[in-house]
């Protein structure tokens, strides 16, 4: 998908139109669950797009991205918890239930975690990198399982969604549009980044680190910067998820969640702008549809994923490109 080409702009306009009209269509079809389903897809699209930045564009196979998704969620959850019980956090400040504070806080905290984990993990490459990111994520998973103060295994219930201006955040349609705004902003940001000087370096690192060193690029710092941005994006998604589900638990950081994000990226098309959105939509829709028919839906999901990944190397975004060329 060439950025800036007329067909891309058309595709983006079409996608935006559909996303904007969706809650209204859901209302008139008498199927409001469509809106919450779409909200889930959008939130995971942000998380997958974050992972895509390092995995698809940078070639860094992070198998621990759910950690940042969970950290973002827990930031919202913990701030709400302290707000609700009027307890001081670190003896310094009270919690808050204001979206405009919790969201930046979640992004910041996940960014810090990504900086710490990335700084160590990026000293390795290849399989070691996959394993070390997985190990860090599992460490955080078990940390939160053990953290009884914040619910441990059972997680933390957030009784009310965070407040944002005078919006009625309880309303699922309102929350859908809030999420949509963040999706649009985040995808626009990713688009700018991957086409910038930084993005060109990142893509170069994926294709040949030795070549990048030979033109004088110290690759480590660029990989770390990408990893931090990516962690922040996943944290944003986690914060939105905490508000959507009004619940956070260690499961948000479980390695199977990291795997799900990876499947979304690869299924949708790694290293493409809209791939993560397609991947998130496909995986969540397949899960929903198959789960309606059978409890053993995973038995059917697996082969479908294998077929798509085997036959469409560029993922769903590659398939869309193919269709566009035929038209």
């Amino acid at each position, binding site marked *: 998908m060439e950025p800036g080409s007329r067909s891309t702009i058309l595709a983006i306009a079409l996608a935006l139109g559909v996303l904007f009209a969706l809650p209204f269509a859901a209302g008139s079809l008498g199927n409001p669950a469509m809106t919450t389903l779409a909200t889930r897809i959008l939130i995971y699209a942000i998380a997958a797009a974050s992972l895509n930045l390092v995995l698809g564009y940078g070639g860094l196979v992070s198998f621990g991205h759910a950690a940042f998704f969970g950290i973002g969620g827990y930031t919202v959850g913990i701030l709400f918890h302290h707000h609700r019980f009027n307890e001081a956090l670190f003896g310094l400040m009270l919690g808050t239930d204001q979206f405009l504070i919790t969201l930046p806080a979640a992004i910041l905290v996940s960014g810090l975690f990504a900086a710490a984990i990335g700084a160590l993990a990026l000293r390795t490459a290849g399989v070691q990198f996959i394993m070390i990111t997985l190990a860090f994520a599992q460490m955080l998973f078990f940390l939160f399982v053990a953290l009884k103060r914040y619910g441990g295994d059972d997680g933390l219930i957030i009784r009310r969604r965070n407040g944002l201006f005078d919006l009625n955040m309880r309303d699922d349609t309102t929350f859908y549009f809030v999420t949509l705004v963040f999706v649009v902003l985040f995808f626009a940001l990713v688009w700018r980044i991957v086409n910038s000087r930084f993005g060109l370096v990142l893509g170069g690192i994926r294709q*040949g680190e030795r070549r990048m*060193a*030979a*033109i004088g690029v110290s690759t480590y710092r660029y990989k770390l910067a990408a990893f931090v941005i990516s962690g922040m994006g996943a944290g944003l998604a986690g914060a939105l998820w905490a508000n959507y589900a009004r619940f956070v638990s260690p499961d948000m950081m479980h390695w199977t969640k990291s795997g799900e994000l990876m499947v979304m990226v690869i299924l949708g098309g790694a290293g493409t702008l809209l791939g993560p959105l397609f991947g998130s939509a496909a995986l969540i829709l397949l899960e929903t549809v198959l789960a309606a028919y059978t409890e053993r839906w995973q038995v059917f999901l697996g082969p479908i994923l294998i077929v798509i990944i085997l036959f469409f190397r560029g993922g769903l975004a590659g398939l869309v490109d193919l269709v566009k060329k035929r038209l």
Partner: protein
Amino acid sequence: MSAILDIRAVVKRFGGLIATDHLSLDVKPGELHALIGPNGAGKTTIINQLMGEIIPDSGEIIFGGEPMAGLKPAARVRKGLGRTFQITQLLPDYTALDHVALAVQAHAGHSFHFFGAARADRRLTGPAMALLDGLAPRAGVKAASLSHGERKQLELAIALAGEPRLLLLDEPMAGLGQVETAQMVDLLKGLKGQIAMLLVEHDMDAVFALADRISVLVYGRCIASGSAAAIQANPDVKTAYLGEGDA
């Protein structure tokens, strides 16, 4: 004139094998110093040590009056070293223009610019197009689709984008046809005098046409060093190298 590159008694062992055996040589500013020798003589190993990809066991590498020990490859490039690879190291999805523009960008400073569209930036594409020179008509072609000869030319253009003070050329003629070799020789002739070069090459005609000085490497040791005529007349070189029909 003091040398721009001074290699002093560098030793590199791989297990029981001595790849570089107390090698000392230098390159003077503007000079083209050719390094020849049979396969396995340790020519690429010395280039990789100069770049910092391999760390010598002992000895010193002085570039521009500065010891290079402890500096990573990227840092050495920023000090003014440039190289081309024997086996081309290109980015398959990037076009020829992308490669050179990226090298121009890296040379211009850090790349922590997250917003402007880099491919539309004339400060990058302008100089890059000029550096592509004869390759300009192929600027928009991805590296994966370039011919072998074009890749070799592109390697050189990328290295030149860094405005190096010393170019390390690792077999730039390897695998080229006659016409392409002649083009490469012309390209390098055009650079002679402006940039110091250390040329590793098997093509003896090219070496004799280009080199100001030739050093012969056998089993990691320098067995002879001198002008083209002196090297051709040297009996040790004849037996060790030229006589073996490797040339």
